[in-house]
């Protein structure tokens, strides 16, 4: 991964209200960056500003160091896979993929070869003459990717490209997309509201909320060291508990005091404490730090997801072992499982 290829500096966008508020981020060459956040947080708007379909109200957008604020979409070396594919229904598969090449006045023979190799890449060889309407959602999605990739853009923007697919196909396509990105060596800016998708595919994740970036970092960083309660809650299930940081490495919550690994807060600062459901271990009653009663237990495929009511908090716990509803249990966790976040975010 090399130079910064795209840079957003303090980008804001107002419609009637402000929907993006001073977004700053950069994308490096060959990086897979994902914008992750709940519906309506401004992901699509950010992507459309990079693609040139919206102009920012404030701030600047750089492409390879040059300001492209007012460069129209057809003059940007960026291609997009739209949320609903936007394939051209009056053209067949071949002509859809060839669309960008024809604009560049490439020779017919070269167009044929390019389209063919693209179809091979997306696993749809022999589909040249098919009608767009005769394709399944997953196939259309792959044609949309092929139509964009064939132009060898420097950056590919993808707006929830897997949103319309069923779970199994989505998992397969996630792997395929990631492989494609490695194979062709193109920078991807990917939009999703699915945290699992973001964590498995990306080099870097930017978590957004209410038009602001909450945290940017590698999937591991985002998962293990969420900077605030929103990120912690959005990235995987979390138990978020009110707490007080008495001193470096000492925190109290749920009327008990614990050792932790965080420091640098002001004395007696009130904080959010995050405990991941998979970090909590169920033990015998009185053998752990907290006691509670199991109120629900659901099988989730690989693990059981259980709710344990302690004195004043309902804790979510994931475990491969099942505890019966109604059983009294103890909960145990180590200092490194306690994540402290300041309330300012």
């Amino acid at each position: 991964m090399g130079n910064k290829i795209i840079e957003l500096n303090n980008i804001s966008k107002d419609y009637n209200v402000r929907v993006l508020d001073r977004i700053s981020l950069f994308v490096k060459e060959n990086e897979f960056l994902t914008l992750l956040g709940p519906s309506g947080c401004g992901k699509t708007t950010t992507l459309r500003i990079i693609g040139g379909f919206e102009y920012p109200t404030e701030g600047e957008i750089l492409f390879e160091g040059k300001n492209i604020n007012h460069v129209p979409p057809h003059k940007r070396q960026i291609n997009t896979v739209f949320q609903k594919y936007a394939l051209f229904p009056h053209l067949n598969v071949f002509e859809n993929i060839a669309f960008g090449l024809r604009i560049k006045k490439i020779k017919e023979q070269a167009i044929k070869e390019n389209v063919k190799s693209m179809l091979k890449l997306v696993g749809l060889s022999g589909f040249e003459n098919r009608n767009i309407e005769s394709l399944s959602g997953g196939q259309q999605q792959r044609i949309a990717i092929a139509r964009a990739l064939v132009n060898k853009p420097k950056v590919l923007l993808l707006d929830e490209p897997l949103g319309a697919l069923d779970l199994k196909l989505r998992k397969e396509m996630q792997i395929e997309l990631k492989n494609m990105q490695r194979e062709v060596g193109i920078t991807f800016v990917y939009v999703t509201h699915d945290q699992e998708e973001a964590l498995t595919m990306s080099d870097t994740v930017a978590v957004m909320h209410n038009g602001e970036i909450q945290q940017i970092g590698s999937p591991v960083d985002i998962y293990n060291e969420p900077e605030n309660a929103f990120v912690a809650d959005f990235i995987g299930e979390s138990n978020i508990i009110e707490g007080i940081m008495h001193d470096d490495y000492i925190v109290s919550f749920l009327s008990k005091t614990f050792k932790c690994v965080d420091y640098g807060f002001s004395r007696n600062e009130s904080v959010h404490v995050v405990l991941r459901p998979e970090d909590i271990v169920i033990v015998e009653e009185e053998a752990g730090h907290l006691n509670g009663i199991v109120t629900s237990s659901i099988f989730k495929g690989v693990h059981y997801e259980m709710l344990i009511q302690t004195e004043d908090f309902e804790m979510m716990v994931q475990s491969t072992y099942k505890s019966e509803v109604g059983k009294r249990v103890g909960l145990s966790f180590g200092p490194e499982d306690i994540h402290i976040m300041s309330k300012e975010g």
Partner: protein
Amino acid sequence: MVKKNIHRIYMFLVFIFLYAPIAVLVIYSFNDSTSRGNWGGFTFKWYIELFQDRDIKSALYYTVLVAFFAASISTIIGTLSAIGLYNLKKGPRAIFMNLNYLPVVNPDIVTGLSLMILYLSVNMKLGFLSMLLSHITFDIPYVILAVLPKLKSMNKHLAEAALDLGATPSYALRKVIIPEIMPGIITGFLIAFTLSIDDFVISFFTTGSGVTNLSIVIYSMARRGVKPTINALSTLMLLAVLILLFLINKKSSLTNRDNKFDGGY
């Protein structure tokens, strides 16, 4: 049972009421006898006579010419206007749409009269050109009405996708948007052509210098006394309009079927 029969009889009477005049007209156009009310045997002679009549031939020529040019020009203007309207924000679009409906509901005689006054006030000679301009004027709103629904049912990211792939806005218009709304454009053209062919009132007010269309010829012939050639001419016009209507219906039923697919992507 009784109720059902009453329904049937009622329907039958309505149809007789609607179609009897037309049927009489068509039948008499093949009547060999000049006097109405007498059946003098089957003949094509009025049709043959029709095509030997100089005035009628010239009117036919102008009718088709005006209809063709008016439909073509109004289709181009109307399609571009529809695209413009589509890209407006909601508020202004509603205003312009209502402005567009006004000529549609305006009585022809008012439109015709006001156009005539306009031409005279700018010292324009009434004739072929003024008639053509008038037809273009009253055709445009119908073209817009035919094209706009097609634009609305189009995936709104198609144009963006074309730009994204490097198309200039005009290339995107030609290669993506126009082909996508083609069924609407063709329907608009056919409606405009039909309206032009059978327009009488507006043409009557805005033509002059010996340029007439078929409706005007029929009107002036009828004033001199009904000759059987009028029946023949009217029958032919009826036929032409029927064929056009058939084409429009076929086109729009195809279009409706297309629409069902639009949700799919």
